[in-house]
């Protein structure tokens, strides 16, 4: 790795700030990385909600704020994009062999998508029992 400043007139590849708009793949990469902002913001929303659990009025106000509901609806597609891209990577991390044969990557991903669905249904069912 070259760490010193180049004093010779070496060619420096230009990197325009809008490089990520030039190809769909670059754009999808940036969208995928951007999902983390929504993950972080929702974590803070949930922290405040959980902290207000013993104060009925503040809890209801935080939960029913129209602005916060709209922001969450905006965040939902990004969270789903994070889940989908993350699960699509599972076959790269988990290489499973059945005897001499490699378990197909698509099957590994499909199992995780199935698990995601089941976990989501269980959580929703538990929440629904309380309501």
């Amino acid at each position, binding site marked *: 790795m070259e760490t010193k400043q180049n004093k010779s007139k070496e060619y420096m590849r230009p990197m325009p700030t809008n490089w990520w708009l030039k190809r769909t793949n670059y754009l999808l990469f940036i969208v995928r990385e951007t999902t983390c902002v929504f993950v972080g913001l929702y974590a803070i929303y949930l922290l405040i909600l959980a902290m207000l659990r013993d104060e009925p009025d503040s809890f209801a106000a935080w939960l029913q704020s129209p602005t916060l509901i709209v922001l969450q609806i905006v*965040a939902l597609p990004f*969270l789903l994009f994070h889940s989908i891209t993350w699960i699509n990577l599972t076959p790269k991390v988990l290489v499973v062999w059945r005897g001499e044969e490699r378990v197909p990557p698509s099957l590994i991903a499909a199992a995780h998508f199935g698990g995601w669905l089941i976990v989501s249904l269980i959580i*929703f069912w538990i929440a629904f029992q309380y309501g």
Partner: protein
Amino acid sequence: MARSNEPLWWSLFSAGGVVSAFLMPITLVVTAVAVPWGWITVEGFRELMQNPLVRIYCFVLISLSMFHWAHRFRHTVSEPSEKGMATLGTIVCYGSAIVVSVLAAVFVVVRSW
């Protein structure tokens, strides 16, 4: 070679990626759709949030998601310097994840606000 603390941050990023991918969308559907639309009552949901297991669930989701955000944001906005120096951005990212984790541990798991 100098020791790096990168594996620690990467592990937390990865764990946070898994937890947020599996648990966060449905949690958001509950708070942003099911409760406002009246499928679940506010009081019933508040009662659920007081359950010790649900509070631990919230802590895990909040803390690991913040570390996921911190690492990914840090690396997308700017690559860490080659010497691995702690820049202001690094401190703000990982620091806020640590602060939020402590807040969640104390005021969500241990005691009331």
